[in-house]
């Protein structure tokens, strides 16, 4: 078992080219903050990109930042914050949920896992902000795609294809992201005491207004107490975040209050308290309990998430909360069994979507499809694509199986 720790793109290229010639599988790592997601790897060697670091281009007025793939996300977020900018897609930190330290993770990992956060509703995910990449395919060839400008349709968008590929298509050496101004202010309006169905209706109403709600989450009773150090109390909280320039935020919050006046008791939360709540929703803190109890990340048509959960509850003990207006359902299986077949069966019955087993004991991850199985024609197409990038199956083999 050898760990390769390249410090330059050329070293990444020679390592992967060597592994391709040897047909010797590589596990690709940054900080390893998401190593527990996917089928457990048993590779002979690791390709550790955590020393391939550095921001190589940052032009705030052009809204663009390029960095070596192993650059810590935390460093990039600090640099952007100094210029009142941000990665608008708000990449989540899996560290706390998976039993690791918070604040780890590399910018390459952000793309490989297609991370996003509560602002996904309005601003998209990593795939919506990636502008260009340099990478080394499993063929041992360095290729590039995209560029450094925010509008570009030249050739196939292989940069997007890398999003959510979990290191199975190529090892990135450089990534270029679109960056955006950070909002001047944020205020969260909380509607208290709603059951899941009433919360879904309230969120749909808010999102269908012109208040430009950037995030909408519902924390059912007892879950609510598990964010931001318990400041919300235990009563169910339906949270609507409004961001922007001061006068605009005040106006839109007032409009939401009028709109939702009859939905339930309202609370206004601003500044640091609001930021903490959304950080904890983003990082799935309510289930960051230091255990290996299975946790699912379910992507669904927003309005239908709670109905699926209701049916699921009749057959299994689950805790659940909702982000993205209900389009992202976080589920913790309280009895320790992932219940994959049950959950995925219900998903199909309730309008489709997909479920990823983001936390589970290695034995469960080795035995179950962690990622949603695809229909045969689509699965075959994905397999052909993998073959075109990594014909000898040396990059994170089997991780997405």
């Amino acid at each position: 078992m050898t760990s390769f720790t390249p410090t330059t793109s050329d070293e990444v290229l020679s390592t992967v080219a060597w592994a391709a010639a040897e047909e010797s599988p590589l596990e690709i790592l940054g900080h390893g903050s998401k190593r527990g997601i996917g089928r457990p790897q048993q590779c002979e060697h690791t390709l550790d990109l955590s020393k391939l670091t550095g921001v190589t281009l940052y032009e705030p007025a052009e809204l663009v930042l390029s960095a070596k793939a192993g650059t810590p996300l935390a460093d990039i977020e600090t640099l952007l914050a100094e210029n009142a900018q941000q990665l608008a897609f708000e990449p989540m930190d899996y560290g706390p949920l998976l039993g690791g330290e918070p604040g780890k993770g590399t910018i390459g990992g952000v793309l490989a896992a297609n991370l996003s956060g509560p602002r996904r509703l309005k601003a998209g995910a990593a795939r919506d902000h990636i502008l260009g990449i340099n990478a080394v395919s499993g063929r041992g060839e360095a290729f590039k795609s995209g560029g450094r400008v925010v509008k570009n349709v030249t050739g196939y968008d292989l940069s997007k294809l890398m999003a959510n590929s979990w290191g199975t298509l190529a090892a990135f050496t450089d990534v270029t992201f679109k960056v955006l101004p950070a909002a001047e202010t944020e205020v969260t309006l909380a509607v208290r005491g709603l059951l899941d169905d009433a919360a879904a209706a309230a969120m749909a109403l808010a999102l269908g207004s012109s208040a430009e709600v950037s995030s909408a989450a519902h924390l059912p009773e007892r879950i609510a107490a598990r964010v931001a150090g318990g400041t919300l109390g235990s009563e169910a909280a339906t949270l609507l975040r409004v961001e922007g320039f001061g006068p605009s935020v005040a106006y839109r919050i007032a409009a939401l209050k009028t709109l939702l006046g009859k939905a339930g008791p309202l609370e206004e939360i601003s500044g640091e308290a609001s930021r903490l709540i959304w950080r904890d929703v983003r990082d799935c803190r309510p289930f960051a309990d230091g255990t290996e109890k299975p946790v699912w990340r379910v992507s669904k048509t927003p309005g239908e998430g709670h109905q699926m959960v209701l049916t699921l509850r009749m057959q299994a003990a689950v805790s659940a909360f909702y982000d993205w207006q209900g389009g992202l359902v976080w589920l913790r299986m309280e009895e320790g069994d992932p219940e994959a077949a049950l959950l995925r069966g219900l998903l199909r019955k309730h309008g489709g979507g997909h479920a990823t087993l983001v936390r589970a004991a290695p034995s469960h991850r080795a035995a179950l499809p962690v990622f949603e199985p695809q229909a045969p024609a689509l699965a075959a197409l994905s397999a052909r694509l993998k073959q075109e990038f990594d014909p000898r199956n040396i990059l994170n083999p089997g991780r997405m199986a």
Partner: protein
Amino acid sequence: MSGLAMPKPDDATMRRRDEIVADMRIIVPGEGVVDAANSMRAFESDGLTAYRQLPLVVVLPQTVAQVSRVLKYCNDRNIRVVPRGSGTSLSGGSLPLEDAVLLVMSRFNRILAIDFSNRVVVAQPGVTNLGITTAVEQEGFYYAPDPSSQIACSIGGNVAENSGGVHCLKYGLTANNVLGIEMVLMNGEVVRLGGSHLDAEGYDLLGVMTGSEGLLGVVTEVTVRILKKPETARALLIGFPTSEQGGQCVADIIGAGIIPGGMEMMDRPAIHAAEDFVHAGYPLDVEALLIVELDGPSVEVDHLITAVEAIAIRNGSTTCRISQSEQERLSFWAGRKAAFPAVGRISPDYYCMDGTIPRKELPRVLAGMRELSETYGLGVANVFHAGDGNLHPLILYDANVPGELDKAESFGADILRLCVKVGGVLTGEHGVGVEKRDLMPEMFNQIDLDQQMRVKCAFDPNHLLNPGKVFPQLRRCAELGRMHISGGKLPYPDIPRF
């Protein structure tokens, strides 16, 4: 056709034309097959009218099953297929081939579902871009990407080209507003990607399909996100003595954390052409004219108008008008929106380019263009999506003067080379098509292009779908798949364990 090499027609296919037409009539009964030269004339070119070619036969399917059967039939018999939506491509993306079936999706023109509580619309690919907004605007919603051809262009074509528009800096391109598609592969298989949920599972095939220019699959259904219309919009019309000052003003607006709904710049020739045509009241003594539109609640718009005005004055603007009514806002846009036909009035023909550059390079690129303009002896007017650096130079020429079209194309190619040289790209929103195909090596080396072609191999291993577009030279998939490792010898036998 000025020196554009297209794939050599396949003799076997040409010989079997009558049989193919008859078989197509069986798959698509009724009015869905057009084979008379006169009737096919309407399909011989798209928005890039310099290139024309009659197809083998035109087929207009009405159901997904028909699309699947046509593609499978052609795949089994090695017959090429060119897909077409409304035919508004500016890069020749749907230019027919002599030996290819032209698969026209215009009869897929129904909206299938509208869901306001989840804010999605499901449409067939032949529905126009504007048609989606029309279907939902009574409830105050709209579909954000608005390419200038939106009245005619189809949503399926938008997916193929990853279309943009003037609002895409704030609201994104097609790729950011499409949640799911159904498509048919060349082998006839029907595949669904995404849906009405936000994240798709597995590899982001939707991301690759968007902007793939009809080379990977034929889209048969599209799910898009719709947005609530902003409460209000106001615009500023700002003139500057130099393009540098205009460019700096744009940088400072973004530096202040403001992302306007639209931000457009025009140079002196474009301003004059537009003003002569629509009399929008544009100042004629400026080198750069900037339109900045802010949208949202009126309290926000008023707040930002003041901020942008201050930034404009700091950058030495010589005029700055702020729209006081919806009518005035529209009058600011009237000139910009009429810029292309306005240029068409001052020149018999014009050729529209589409590079994107890092915005700070604008003065250098404009200066380079002026030099090229003198070298080639052809005029050029510029409109510019200033927020995202997408430049549309309009090269003025006269197709009736022998050699001028060639000259205009060479001029355009030089402009795009200049864009790439300063860190930009060949095309921001019009696509590569046939137009910029042979310039791809300016941006990509052979390894880059080979990897893109391998993606094509995963979808269409026989290169039957829309060949001759995007890639300067198609290489066989078997050849692309080979790994070049010399006879068992490791290329890196002594690799250091760094």
